[in-house]
């Protein structure tokens, strides 16, 4: 069976997920914040909640989605050519 094309990035990808989810909000805190808004008589149509939500909200609101490409390619080690192309 052919091995993954991304074998060389295994450690980098695992580390990226640890960074992204390492300080994740507890579900109890999340539920308190969200339910308080949901039960309102005039609730907001959108509710942003959880660690990192504000960052995404800002990128979307400012319309600077190109930031995702730079940020994620660096974080996951995808900003450089694969070793299989390096001589």
């Amino acid at each position: 069976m052919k091995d993954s094309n991304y074998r060389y990035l295994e450690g980098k990808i695992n580390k990226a997920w640890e960074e992204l989810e390492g300080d994740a909000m507890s579900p109890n805190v999340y539920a308190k914040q969200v339910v308080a808004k949901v039960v309102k008589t005039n609730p907001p149509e959108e509710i942003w909640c959880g660690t990192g939500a504000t960052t995404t909200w800002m990128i979307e609101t400012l319309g600077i989605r190109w930031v995702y490409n730079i940020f994620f390619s660096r974080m996951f080690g995808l900003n450089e050519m694969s070793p299989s192309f390096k001589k």
Partner: protein
Amino acid sequence: MSKRTVLITGCTKGSIGYSLAKEFAAQDYQVFATTRNVTSMADLSTIPNITLLPLDITSRDSVLSAHSTITQQTGGKLDILYHNAGYRSLGMAIESPVDEAYKMFNTNLFGILLVNSVFADMVIKAKGKIVFTGSVSGYTPHPSQAVYNSSKAAVELYAKTLRIEMRPFGVRVLFVLTAAVNTGMSSERVKLAEGRFLNFQWVEG
């Protein structure tokens, strides 16, 4: 006056749904907490306002059965329908098996569509709310979860369309853009399996 009612999908212990159930109960709602396997949320049964029901959102029989139980208990009204159940697994885009993609879309889009079509009349009767546990992953191109990202983008546009279509009935549609929350869904890491870069991660959020 009788208590307001909420149905929540995906309430396995440690998940977002589990905490939502407790929080709605604390707000004095009558809560119908559901998940595929009731034993996975058994300790919620000690809370007075919470009723546990089995519900597999990808099965029409299961959805209809839950609908009939809840209809009997609430007189056919439901104040809040909370679509929370989700399924996530990781894999690089070109290495994600189609079967796994079907599984993810079955839970994250088609299951929601099914539950929504069956329960909508109850929410309309109550002029209630339909809430979605969405994800910032519907916006962000996180590498190694292309299929999950696309399922969350799909459900968001479904919800936004639903919002407009529900206006004549006084039903509000709320979408929760969820970022990192520490649940069973986020506790596993990606592992390279032989020939695949994939880790079948655990279910219901």
